[in-house]
């Protein structure tokens, strides 16, 4: 980020216009057992234009999707109690969930590989930043 760049506007549109001019609201889910990380990551996503919701472990995500809630993108931590990121991702893919799932982890390459193989679209090192998430906004 360049010095002196303007701060993201708090009035930033939380909608995206696609080619047909149809305006779409984008929903993101942050999954992490650390409340500090949940707060920061959801704030980052809100600031670039998503509406962010949070969940504290893998089982809650699976339950959410099972109950019919959908998201445009999920950012999921690897290490969580009850159901971790790898198990949750496998479960979501097995359920037929096709939305973008991005792994977020502080672990090394070997662990990242295993995480990606579970069905992720991408894997980022913690912590997330505005620069890391902006490309996803453009892809959706």
């Amino acid at each position, binding site marked *: 980020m360049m010095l002196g760049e303007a*701060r*993201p506007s*708090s009035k930033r549109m939380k909608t995206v216009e696609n080619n047909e001019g149809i305006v779409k609201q984008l929903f993101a889910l942050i999954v992490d057992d650390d*409340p*500090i*990380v949940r*707060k*920061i990551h959801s704030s980052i996503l809100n600031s670039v234009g998503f509406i962010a919701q949070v969940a504290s472990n893998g089982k809650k995500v699976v339950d959410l999707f099972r109950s019919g809630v959908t998201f445009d993108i999920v950012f999921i931590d690897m290490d969580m109690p009850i159901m971790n990121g790898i198990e949750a991702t496998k479960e979501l893919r097995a359920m037929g969930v096709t939305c973008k799932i991005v792994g977020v982890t*502080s672990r090394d390459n070997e662990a990242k590989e295993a995480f990606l193989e579970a069905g992720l679209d991408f894997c980022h090192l*913690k912590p997330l930043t505005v620069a890391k998430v902006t490309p996803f906004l453009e892809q959706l």
Partner: protein
Amino acid sequence: MDTVTQLQRQLVDYTNSLFLEGFLNEQFNQLQQLQDESNPDFVVEVVSLFFQDSERLLNELAKILEQKNIDFKKVDAHVHQLKGSSSSIGAQRVQRVCIAFRNSCEEKNIEGCQKCLQHVKYEYTHVKNKLETLFKLEQQVLAAGGTIPMY
């Protein structure tokens, strides 16, 4: 120089010193950039959460390391959490000690772990004091009728 400008100058200099001395890194900038009119206390809220959580983790670690049979898995899990949260707010020095701490855990090195615990407590207390001073300086600028300079 009027009072507000003086206080702002003090704040900017103090903030810069925290980065130069390695207490904070760019991740803290990220937090500051997320603060705006719709989220005016974001940084203080996140940092307060960090203080609460860290103190809980440090107390837990002290208890576990006092046990006769140390559960290194538990120690590692707590340190992993502390490493994660310190890195997410940019508390660089704390994060670094956590990395060394995890190595001691892996080696099941009791003395190493105890030394690391002391070290991480020290770095945590240090950055806590620095951040509290930073917030006080911000309050002084606001109380004098000024605005927090954009970082």
